[in-house]
């Protein structure tokens, strides 16, 4: 079975830009089986598998790709699942170009194997089959509470349940999934996929208690006192930052969290069939340059805005968003206003947003993050007319749990201090992982942390 010599990296078919800005359906369709096999055949099956080192959970990449090439898609999926509980999610949202694909030996020529797309293909194949119910593990009689149903919490819970522990997840929202359901839009990650993964967890015996804000309805100490043998905290970094400029509290100014939560979790894009309203904007500015900003901008277009600008104070190279997402946003007609910084949001006499005053910037010396620092250009002020501003300049951890758990050590940015390998915090029997420990990061890193913590919790529960 010799691969056709030097097939190029296979493209994934997707909805055209003109079509997709009118709907919320997923943009790429995924590989058809034939294309997946061609792409899989491009993998050189390197003995050392450098690609694996780029993956935070070290998915056995050459092995699963080989199975795709051989047409054994179910086995490919099983191999990935051994290391990654949510492959249908990661295949879609991992920043692969900075992780597994970055270290692929073919990356030097800019033609790395499309590992993410293949992972998505195998996972989608798995989801389409009847679910496999893993053999029930012998109950250990130990109980673990997991706080937060984001990728970190879901992964930790799943691993612990498979080891025979009794796991209950406490989630503040009325739906599990964390950022996967309230942040990342349907057109990038269909919610049915998250639901399928959650259903699988439930079949594995995980209990999920929704509408449970830990720190309010119960504290961490109360959970321990109630008989949970260990607690994992995976509450994410959900607190939105604002810029602190005049006019930020006007009607029509949203945090990206609010805008995306209204649209994704509350389905405001289907108003009035769903009851949650969202402003029907005409002219929108999104402030920021990360994935969150791209998601907000593309959501605004789909909600019918005529003009959506992305205002970012550095240049394109510094944008933290995934290249693919920047590209998608641009194709769909988002206008990039780079090296631009807002200094005031302007309102009308009804307290509604009518515009924004901005400054042009130029790049100066590198700052602490190694990126060149933007400096204002004197006299470059200008105004744009707008009715909506969405602020997407980052999130920090919510202080609720630290403030109600006195002996939990907290870092300088409000993150919970936890051991890198085990997730153990300063408090006995309490572990933490994901964005609450690292600050806003990625889905797969949160999952990796959940996984490592599950291993450590298991060791502690069975050892002591």
């Amino acid at each position, binding site marked *: 079975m010799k691969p056709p010599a030097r097939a190029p990296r296979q493209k994934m078919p997707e909805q055209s830009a003109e079509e997709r800005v009118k709907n919320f359906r997923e943009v790429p369709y995924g590989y058809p089986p034939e294309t997946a096999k061609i792409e899989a055949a491009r993998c050189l099956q390197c003995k050392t598998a450098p690609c694996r080192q780029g993956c935070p959970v070290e998915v056995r990449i050459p092995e699963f790709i080989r199975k795709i090439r051989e047409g054994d898609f179910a086995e490919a999926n099983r191999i990935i699942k051994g290391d990654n509980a949510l492959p249908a999610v990661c295949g879609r949202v991992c920043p692969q170009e900075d992780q597994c694909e970055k270290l692929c030996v073919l990356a030097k020529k800019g033609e790395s194997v499309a590992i993410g797309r293949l992972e998505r293909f195998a996972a989608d194949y798995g989801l389409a089959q009847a679910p496999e119910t893993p053999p029930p593990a012998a109950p250990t009689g130990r109980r673990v509470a997991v706080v937060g149903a984001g990728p970190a919490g879901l992964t930790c819970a799943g691993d612990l349940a498979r080891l025979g522990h009794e796991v209950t997840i406490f989630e*503040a*929202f*009325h739906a599990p999934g964390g950022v996967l359901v309230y942040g990342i839009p349907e057109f990038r990650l269909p919610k049915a996929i998250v639901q399928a993964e959650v259903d699988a967890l439930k079949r594995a015996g995980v209990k999920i208690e*929704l*509408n*449970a*804000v830990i720190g*309010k*309805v*119960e504290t961490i100490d109360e959970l321990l006192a109630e008989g949970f043998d260990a607690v994992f905290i995976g509450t994410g970094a*959900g*607190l*939105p930052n*604002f810029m602190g400029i005049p006019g*930020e*509290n*006007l*009607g*029509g100014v*949203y*945090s990206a*969290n*609010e805008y995306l*939560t*209204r649209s994704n979790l*509350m*389905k405001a894009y289907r*108003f*009035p*069939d*769903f*009851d*949650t*309203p969202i*402003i*029907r904007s005409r002219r929108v500015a999104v402030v920021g340059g990360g994935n969150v900003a791209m998601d907000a901008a593309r959501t605004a277009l789909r909600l019918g805005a005529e003009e959506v600008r992305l205002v970012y104070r550095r240049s394109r190279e510094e944008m933290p968003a995934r290249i693919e997402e920047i590209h998608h946003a641009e194709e769909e007609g988002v206008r990039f206003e780079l090296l631009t910084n807002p200094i005031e949001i302007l309102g009308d006499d*009804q*307290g*509604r947003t009518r515009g924004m005053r901005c400054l042009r910037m130029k790049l100066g010396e590198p700052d602490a993050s190694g990126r060149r620092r933007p400096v204002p250009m004197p006299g470059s002020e200008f105004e744009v007319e707008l009715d909506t501003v969405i602020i997407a300049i980052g999130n920090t951890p*919510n202080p*609720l749990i630290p403030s109600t758990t006195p002996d939990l050590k907290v870092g300088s940015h409000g993150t919970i201090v936890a051991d890198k390998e085990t997730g153990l915090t300063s408090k006995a029997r309490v572990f933490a992982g994901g964005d609450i420990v690292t600050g806003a990061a990625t889905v797969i890193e949160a999952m990796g942390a959940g996984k490592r913590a599950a291993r450590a919790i298991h060791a502690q529960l069975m050892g002591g």
Partner: protein
Amino acid sequence: MFAIKKKRLIAPKVVLMEVLAPKIARKRRAGQFVILRVNDTGERFPLTIADSDAEAGTITIIFQIAGKSTALLAALNEGEAIQDVVGPLGRPTHIEKVGHVVCIGGGVGIAPVYPILRAMKEIGNRVTSIISARSKDLLILEEEMRAHSDDLKVATDDGSHGFKGFPTQILQGMMNGGERIDLVVAVGPVPLMRAVCEVTRPRGIPTVVSLNPIMVDGTGMCGGCRVSVGGKTQFVCVDGPEFDGHQVDFDLLSKRLRTYADLERASAEAHKCKIGAG
């Protein structure tokens, strides 16, 4: 699902419900609220916990039918259940023995004042309550408020019951009469809270108000509930809902409350049409 144990219409368009939510009932304190979602397509909206019974595991909510969500909630009957109830949210009221406290509740704002009044009384304050409504039949919780207050005064806009006029006039009268007041707590429509603050400001009487911005999550993750207090942005769901009324930018609050007015009206209309047709 959260079962409705009891439902009663206590004034036109004002409904009292006892809802089974044992964990919340056990934990909640005066001043806190819940966020509800009536069904799968519903929005999340806040209501104050007016009372609770830890033994029965129930919380009491009292709400005015204002638009679609409260209408949907009011349409549920005893034995039926609310999809989602989350809480207790917000900071509890700061309860301290200060001397003489005046608790002012306007309209459906009487419901959130009721638990505060009781806590203020329990800790040993002398409490005068002033409750008001547009007319007698809209007045809620009069008996309950009277039972726990040292003195209860009633005002109606049309004079159909008690004093004819606004509660602020009663408050002003007390102050003019030289009565010592150590703290005022006011809950009600924004114009009422603003007016109370204007009355107490010249004498520097500490005045606490409970703000009612539009909320989504109620846990500090969206920022939709932000208000300006003393020039600083605060999230009402986690930093409040109670604030020093003399520092609150009421103008901003009322403008933000109107953000979705057109959409809400459309939604309520569509809802009525559906009910009408069905």
